[in-house]
């Protein structure tokens, strides 16, 4: 069953066509990676899903709500069921780590006592490997730690969809691996829908059940990870072969992809 549906989404900025009729149905409780070369509209697509950008034509449905035309109340009702990890964490510098993670609870769970709130925050920070960091300032954290805290904030209110905007960008390979492992752990533990926007092919293959590839504002490939990696489309093979040893195209031997760090 699809939890997010994009129906012929078009978006242009001035004369630049960013999305050119993208249709996609993102399945519930699975991880979908949206990949593609830089400047191909991945982040714009993500912003459509959360309703930060409205399409020029087409529809984006989340939980059945049209995110492009919904009023603020309906939009916020959907967003309360989502969490998002931004590229740099988007942590508020004026708040501590703990206050950042508690932020969604402060605004949407007034029923929680301060003690219960603190317990949830500590528990969530522990889940992302940041136990004991609640009193620290975001400025004292490394890039990878900021992402972990950003992830804690994204999942603290137990959303049904978690979106990741370039979770590996700017990180060294080992920290990238740790973030990928964290996404896999969260998927096992939370059982929610993950949407990962990334240009990190290795990470995408590692965490995703499904891959959608954007190229030139269009959907170049979409399907289960193994299917996309076996795609005969030249643009898809060119994109993935940069970092992976691909299985043969249909008709050839059906090896599983061998994933290696670049």
């Amino acid at each position, binding site marked *: 069953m699809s939890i997010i549906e994009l129906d012929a989404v078009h978006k242009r900025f001035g004369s630049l066509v960013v999305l050119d009729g993208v249709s996609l149905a993102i399945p519930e409780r699975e991880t979908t990676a949206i990949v593609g070369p830089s400047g191909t509209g991945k982040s714009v697509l993500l912003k459509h899903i959360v309703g930060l950008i409205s399409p020029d034509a087409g529809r984006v449905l989340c939980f059945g709500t049209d995110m492009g035309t919904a009023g603020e109340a309906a939009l916020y009702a959907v*967003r309360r069921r989502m969490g998002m990890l931004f590229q740099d964490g988007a942590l508020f510098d004026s708040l501590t780590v703990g206050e950042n993670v508690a932020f969604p609870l402060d605004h949407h769970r007034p029923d929680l006592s301060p003690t219960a709130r603190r317990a949830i925050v500590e528990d969530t920070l522990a889940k992302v490997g940041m136990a004991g960091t609640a009193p620290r300032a975001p400025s004292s954290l490394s890039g990878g730690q900021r992402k972990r805290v950003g992830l804690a904030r994204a999942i603290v209110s137990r959303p049904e969809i978690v979106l990741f905007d370039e979770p590996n960008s700017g990180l060294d390979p080992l920290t990238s691996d740790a973030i990928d492992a964290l996404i896999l752990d969260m998927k096992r533990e939370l059982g929610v829908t993950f949407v990962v926007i990334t240009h990190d092919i290795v990470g995408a293959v590692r965490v995703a059940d499904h891959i959608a590839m954007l190229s030139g504002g269009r959907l170049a490939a979409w399907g289960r990870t193994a299917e996309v990696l076996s795609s005969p489309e030249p643009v898809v093979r060119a994109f993935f072969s940069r970092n992976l040893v691909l299985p043969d195209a249909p008709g050839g031997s059906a090896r599983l992809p061998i994933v290696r760090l670049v």
Partner: protein
Amino acid sequence: MSRPAEPLLLRTLGGVGHYALFVAAFVRAVRRHGVPWGAVLGESYRIGVLSLPVLLVIAGFVGTNLALQGHAAFTPLGGQRLVGLFVSLAGVRELAPIIAASMVAAKAGTEMASQLGVMRIREQIDALEVMAVNPLAFLVAPRLVGILLVLPALTVLSIFVMVASGYAVAVHQLGLNGHVFLEFATTGIRPVDFLYGQIKGMIFGALICTVSCWYGYFCESGPEGVGRATNRAVVTSAVLCVALNYFLSEIMYGR
């Protein structure tokens, strides 16, 4: 001749329209989500503390110069006694509100623009939206309430500092009679002039806050964008306050 002016005119009109839409969206957001009152005290304190030291220095030296110029203008006419009246009238009615507003624009207004600009380019404003927290109500409303509380108080403080420094120069440097200075300083102004000063302060405060937040909120990406937004915020706020001051004075004191 008119061709180069067209884009500028269109840009200006476009900017005015965009600002008006921003203010309308802000009013809607506050009506729907209210003001986060917990943040107002902090904002008031920060706006006041940021602007107070420089404001006191500027207001002090404006008062000294008013006394000097008043003395230079009225002494040849035999009107030395009018120096107190000149200092208090100019200070209370015009200079205290506009100088307090300028200093708040320079210190607190630039901070608002740069803070919101940095939040914009670091996606923190988007993060608020995605967490279903209205950024206008959350970020702009406490700053506006803070400035509305603080700027009238700073205006009154400026008035007293201007008159006091004018008195010090008039009496201790120019040798005028202190009692006469104070008598003319107090009889020339009416209680309603203080009220008008407060009203000016509140209007300037609302203008500075909304203009600065508007520039920061729609900051272009990158550090240069934050720099540009900050610069435009202070220049636009100062120009608008000075221009608006004329119209307010015309309404309050004209005819």
